[in-house]
């Protein structure tokens, strides 16, 4: 075994008031070897970022390290002076952050910022050498035209580019260890694939070790060699990645895996972890996971489990693992977690109801039809604010929504998904096309004339923290629609309905008298769903309702949405970028690129056999846990072009690996494959597709 590069023992970090400190990192011990990728996995608020900041000694003013040791290549970092530490930071140990937008200084050019990093750590005093090295670094992180980029400002770069620049800056000091705190969370999947690939390449070229902090199990599975699972400030399990996914030991790890949505779990409910992470400023007596652990025994409440190492690589913090003398080989509670977990929040009677996948749409008329919807935003310029062009956010899309069925709208950020949803609801005025709800045209109706339709069309937003007025009581928030649409003009009646709604989404009716900030992200999302359901809509637009939530909480929301659909027959337009959610929840899927739908069809068809090159690339870029399902990643170069100036011909041609001459000049017409499948591509092979389509029909 090689000597570890980073050797952390018993690291303990406290935050806040010394009399009542929050122990955000508690006795953390880990080793990272040179050249390996070590993943730190955990839900939000479990102390991952604080661990990284403690290692860098960059804690906020209220934080302090109270115990432990951090050795980097034999040097004890915790006893260095601040000046010495500054040499280490960015020198032997560098860090990249989650938000590329906020980690670059907006008023300095990229070249200046990289040059600064270079000078700081290599003592290069001459400007020219700094610039040369900067170009070299930018090239190393795969930025085209590095010479030109040097003179650009951060706002001229896309998110992925910024993250590349951040990586370039981190590499400036030629570090041995790179700490990456959620480096790709803010990025799209195709860009995420680029950045992860870049990290890998950089790593093998320079032999540096990476501490990858993330909450995304797929990313871990694809990039890391070893991992540690963190819960409430402690490491609860460490394992080599392959072993972990084959056989997680800690109940918490097992639940995380269970709660991942995918196609295989379609008919079933997802496992959820009830409750939430306990506050870290309370003293713990027993196991920290005990309130949420279905496998808990009596001892768990009384006694905190000790760390138990099975080998160098594997260890777990759980009484059950300790009891089990045989160690790794057996899974003491596996049977319990396989059965559907008791779901206290579920309003439905039968959690095992059969999948509502059976195609019923042939007999149905669509509830809502959208034809050629266009939303163009004018670009104003100059003193007179003349219109100089348009942002074609949504440029002619056609969709049908059926009662009781879910249409997923997927695509990368900026492709116009949200605008399409808002255009459907007339929250942004569409500039063209038609939206007919039960035969009635909605576009062009005035604020007042729209009101009768408001009741039937509702929306749930992405960010549960921004979607409720922090100044209003939950009861008033949920009752707002009832009041505005005069469905329940009397307050008492409204409050009764609110109590019912809270019950429906699995919350305590008492919640009506509380403020939104008293709820966790998942609970808030339930409240938002309740608000939308208050007016008894027929169609619900869900705009990335789970992307701000943790995996275990996401499972709760997905279960809830599924239940509600079964009970109330709602039609969902489910906007998302997460394809595993799509495969779990949706019936049909439409893939959007730059304001247009490029492929549309039933979920099984599209996900199993993508026909459009973009769909294929998108699917291949999604990190998946199961190595057998992993596809060869199709490299997509560059970023999505701006919808201000879409490329000529097929919008995808500058990035398309299969582009042919005609793609540069003509936008492909829609090709129908079978009765439900539509693809926009010059190269799609009609004959083969119909056949596979037929196959999959037989299969389903």
């Amino acid at each position: 075994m090689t000597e570890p590069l980073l050797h952390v023992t018993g690291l303990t970090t406290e935050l806040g008031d010394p009399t009542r400190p929050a122990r955000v990192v508690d006795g953390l011990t880990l080793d990272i070897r040179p050249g390996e990728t070590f993943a730190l996995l955990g839900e939000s608020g479990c102390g991952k970022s604080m661990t990284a900041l403690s290692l860098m000694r960059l804690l906020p003013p209220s934080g302090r390290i109270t115990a432990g040791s951090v050795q980097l290549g034999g040097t004890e970092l915790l006893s260095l002076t601040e000046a010495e530490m500054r040499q280490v930071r960015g020198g032997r140990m560098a860090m990249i952050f989650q938000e590329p937008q906020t980690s670059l200084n907006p008023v300095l050019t990229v070249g200046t910022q990289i040059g600064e990093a270079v000078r700081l750590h290599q003592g290069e005093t001459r400007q020219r050498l700094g610039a040369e090295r900067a170009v070299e670094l930018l090239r190393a992180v795969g930025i085209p035209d590095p010479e030109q980029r040097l003179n650009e400002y951060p706002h001229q770069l896309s998110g992925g580019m910024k993250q590349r620049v951040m990586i370039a800056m981190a590499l400036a000091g030629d570090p041995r260890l790179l700490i990456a705190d959620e480096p790709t969370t803010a990025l799209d999947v195709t860009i995420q694939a680029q950045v992860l690939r870049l990290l890998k390449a950089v790593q093998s070229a320079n032999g540096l070790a990476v501490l990858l902090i993330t909450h995304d199990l797929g990313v871990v599975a694809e990039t890391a060699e070893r991992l540690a699972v963190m819960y409430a400030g402690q490491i609860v399990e460490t394992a080599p990645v392959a072993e972990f996914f084959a056989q997680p030991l800690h109940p918490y790890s097992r639940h995380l895996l269970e709660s991942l949505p995918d196609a295989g779990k379609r008919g079933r409910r997802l496992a959820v972890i009830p409750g939430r992470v306990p506050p870290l400023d309370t003293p713990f007596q027993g196991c920290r996971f005990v309130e949420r652990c279905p496998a808990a025994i009596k001892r768990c409440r009384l006694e905190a489990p000790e760390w138990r190492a099975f080998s160098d690589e594997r260890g777990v913090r759980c009484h059950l693992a300790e009891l089990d003398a045989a160690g790794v080989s057996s899974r003491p509670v596996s049977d319990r977690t396989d059965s559907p977990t008791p779901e206290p929040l579920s309003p439905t009677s039968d959690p095992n109801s059969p999948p509502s996948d059976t195609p019923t749409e042939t007999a149905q008329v669509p509830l809502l039809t959208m034809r050629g919807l266009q939303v163009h935003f004018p670009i104003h310029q100059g003193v007179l604010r003349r219109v100089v062009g348009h942002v074609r956010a949504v440029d002619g899309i056609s969709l049908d929504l059926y009662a009781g069925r879910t249409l997923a709208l997927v695509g990368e950020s900026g492709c116009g998904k949200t605008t399409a949803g808002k255009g459907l609801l007339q929250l942004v005025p569409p500039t063209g096309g038609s939206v007919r709800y039960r035969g009635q045209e909605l576009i062009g109706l005035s604020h007042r004339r729209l009101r009768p339709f408001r009741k039937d069309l509702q929306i749930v937003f992405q960010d549960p923290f921004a979607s409720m007025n922090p100044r209003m009581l939950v009861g008033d928030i949920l009752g707002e629609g009832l009041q505005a649409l005069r469905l329940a003009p009397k307050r008492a009646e409204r409050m009764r309905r609110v109590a019912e709604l809270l019950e429906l989404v699995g919350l305590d009716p008492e919640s009506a008298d509380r403020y939104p900030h008293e709820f966790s992200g998942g609970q808030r999302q339930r409240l938002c769903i309740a608000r939308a359901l208050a007016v008894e809509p027929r169609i619900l637009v869900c705009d990335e309702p789970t992307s701000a939530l943790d995996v275990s909480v996401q499972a709760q929301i997905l279960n809830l949405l599924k239940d509600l659909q079964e009970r109330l027959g709602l039609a969902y337009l489910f906007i998302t970028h997460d394809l595993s959610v799509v495969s779990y929840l949706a019936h049909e899927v439409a893939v959007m690129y730059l304001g247009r739908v490029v492929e549309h069809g039933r979920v099984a068809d599209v996900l199993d056999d993508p026909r459009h090159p973009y769909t294929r690339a998108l699917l291949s870029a999604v990190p998946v846990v199961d190595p057998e399902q992993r596809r060869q990643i199709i490299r997509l170069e560059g970023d999505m072009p701006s919808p201000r100036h879409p490329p000529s011909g097929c919008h995808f041609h500058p990035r398309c690996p299969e582009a042919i001459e005609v793609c540069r000049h003509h936008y492909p017409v829609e090709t129908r494959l079978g009765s439900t499948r539509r693809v926009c591509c010059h190269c799609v092979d009609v004959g083969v597709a119909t056949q596979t389509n037929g196959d999959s029909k037989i299969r389903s």
Partner: protein
Amino acid sequence: MPLIPVVLWTDALVFLLLAVTALFAVWAARHEHLRAPWRRVVRSRIGVATLVVLSAYAVVGLLDTVHFRLKLDRADESGEVRYAPEVLSLLDLALSGLRERQEKTYSAPFATHLHAKEALDQPDGTVIRDYPRLQHGGAHLADPERDRAWDIAWRSLIGLVQGLILWALLAAGLVWWLARRHGQPFDAVRNRILKGQTQIPWRTALGTLGLVLVLAFVIGELALKYHVLGTDKVGEDVLYQALKSIRTGLLIGTLTTLIMLPAAILLGIMAGYFRGWIDDLIQYLYTTLNSIPGVLLIAATILMLQVYMSNHADEFASLVERADLRLLFLCLILGVTSWTGLCRLLRGEALKLREIDYVQAAQALGVGHFTIIARHILPNVMHIVLITLVLDFSGLVLAEAVLSYVNIGVDPTMNSWGNMINSARLELARDPIVWWSLAAAFLFMFTLVLAANLFADVVRDAFDPRLRGV
């Protein structure tokens, strides 16, 4: 009736302001998100200390806002009840001693003799030039040279003791009230306050209150027999002038914002929320207004008003009313020139808020535009309004001084720090120098502005979500 009340325009507005504040307080008390920041304010030491000082100013200002005319002692021949033409305030009544004890001209603080030599008739018939004794200041002393220092010390001591007694009574009352509210024994509460262990820093509050009370009583005791801050050119007590100026300063600081607030809030939010042509219109309006120099606008208005007033002198019942109207116009015009800043801030914030998810959700629920503004936007910009209010206050108080100095401020007959400074301009050139008017104005204004600024900082820290890190 021994008096008839007189409600000047500005008085009415002050009462309106008080009512609005009271309503806001009741409303805030019921909403946790409003109560929490205020709680943070009163839990800060600087917060309570400045609050005590500001309240002292406010009490003086309010006393000076209740106006009336006294009944004349003698009815006239027809037997009709007659009222004095002079409009007085409660403060005038309380300070009637100071008001009536006029000297001939300048005298220094605590002086017993005038500041200027005069020809004096000696008992033996000769005439010499010397500093004459004051009619009131130190008139009770037989030999001022010898007795004055002792007399001042003695009176200060009496004032000190009186102040301390009153303070002790108030403090005991407070402790008793706290003890009853928390159901704890008197001693325990007292000890906690003394050790500074209470959540609201009562120790600081009581300390400041003690200081204010002692100062007030010592000065009050001394003012009975001396001109503590001297007298001005026409022999009027400078302390009296400085105290009367408090109302002017406070009014300028508060009424201006009260006047500009509705316009700023309404236009700012409307511009941001509705966008389009409404936004363009409002933006043009405030860009235009902003590009006219404020001083020019103020000068023009005040000069026009002056002309109007001198042409229609008979429309004003008294000098006080005339001065009051001018003050009101000054507030108005200051308001007109200063709403643009807040309006712009609110427009920006409304632009951001209209895109936020909960506003979109409300639109999706069919909530009307004005309900959305009132329910979702206004409460979420209130902290900006409040922070602007307290930050602007001291600026306006200082602006009054500057404007009066260049003669486009309040009426020259009205007591104001600006007017005091304005007249002190010439006095500084005299030999020996007359410094006390300027010093008094400076002292009073400085204390107020310092307290207001410190308070504004505390309020901003408590209300600004970014500073709170939430």
